[in-house]
């Protein structure tokens, strides 16, 4: 299993059966593959649908896509709606969880994931609303980028929200922001605590024994 699928699999374990979940574009999209159908999880796409699922192959429709513009399938019982309603669900606290990619997370749990000033200006899209409004926010990202730490004492990129995320899942570790700082909950199989600490610029609180991710 590659790194991204590993992260997705671990994130999937956090999802409560029957809940409403929004998956960001990119890596987070992979999470759905690891959630069993029996869990009856409702996946929302912020462009206006609840009930994403199944495989669209051979049943593609240009009017049924996800927030990345890719074809999706819809399960029986799906519902479509406009953008104001979609973000009413998000901002109004009706969304149980969002899983988002990240560029950086700081020691308090603030996320930066929408802009690299002067270099890459994608725009925040739905990210600011999602971090602000979802009941639970999980960041799913690689622990480092080109050898550089992404979990930092302080953000160097503009933050996405004042609201701190609830969990960070990377290829190396599971980390929980709390009032005291970032707690290292789990390490990936065959990864040592020291390796995680070395790959992390922010201070991690290590409460031994650290669990090994169940993958």
């Amino acid at each position: 299993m590659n790194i991204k699928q590993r992260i997705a699999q671990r994130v999937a374990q956090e999802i409560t059966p029957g809940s409403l979940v929004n998956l960001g574009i990119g890596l987070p999209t992979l999470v759905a593959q690891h959630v069993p159908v029996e869990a009856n999880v409702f996946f929302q796409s912020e462009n206006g649908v609840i009930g994403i699922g199944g495989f669209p192959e051979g049943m593609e429709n240009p009017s049924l896509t996800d927030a990345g513009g890719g074809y999706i399938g819809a399960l029986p019982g799906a519902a479509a709606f406009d953008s104001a309603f979609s973000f009413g669900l998000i901002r109004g606290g009706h969304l149980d969880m969002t899983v988002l990619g990240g560029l950086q997370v700081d020691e308090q749990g603030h996320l930066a994931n929408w802009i690299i000033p002067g270099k890459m200006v994608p725009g925040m899209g739905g990210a600011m609303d999602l971090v602000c409004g979802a009941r639970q926010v999980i960041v799913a990202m690689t622990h480092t980028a080109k050898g550089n730490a992404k979990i930092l004492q302080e953000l160097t990129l503009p933050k996405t929200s004042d609201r701190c995320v609830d969990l960070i899942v990377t290829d190396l570790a599971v980390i929980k922001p709390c009032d005291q700082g970032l707690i290292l909950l789990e390490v990936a199989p065959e990864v040592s605590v020291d390796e995680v600490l070395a790959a992390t610029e922010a201070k991690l609180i290590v409460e031994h024994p650290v669990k090994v991710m169940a993958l």
Partner: protein
Amino acid sequence: MKQPIDVSDAVAMIPNGATIMVGGFMGVGTPDQLLSEMVRQRKHNLTLIANDTARPAVGIGKLIDAGTITKSIVSHIGTNPETQRQMIAEEQDVELAPQGTLAERVRAGGYGLGGVLTPTAIGTVAAEGKQVIDVDGESFLLERPLKADFALIKAQQADYYGNLQYRLTAQNFNPLMAMAATTVIVEVDEMLPVGCITPDQVHTPGVLIDYIVKSGVLA
């Protein structure tokens, strides 16, 4: 009764310098034929309000490629490097807005509300220069309503009164924009006799629609 009009006549009504809202999300639910005609008629100096600028050569990307847009209010331009290039080269003034805030701002414009009070973006650079209002101890950003001279929207079906039905995720910003512009032009795939859309299935009432253009006529 609203008979579909020719796409060139519809687009000819839009003056250079106008503010336009364009429906769609990454090209899905975008009035493609209207946009191609905008480029053909060499419109310029337009202000764009839309969710995103899709990709080069796709949907709103066609307007970007042709340099028709000098200012845009959008939530996402990450899939269109040409928009980013124009922004960095200062050929286009891009205002980035959170998607949910953008949707509510368009709605507020169409619904006669003075603005939107949202917790989204508080404490971020997207809040700079904006007023924060305290409501019972909680802070909310005051975001301005948006209106346009023209809304260019896309629906799957219209009846001859202009009642509209959208399809799945092609709905997105279209019904909101239908409320927020002085003149609303809709591009539809199919025209239905009046009465063939039941009252409960109408997504946008025909009284909001000024002109109808049929898609695929030029295809």
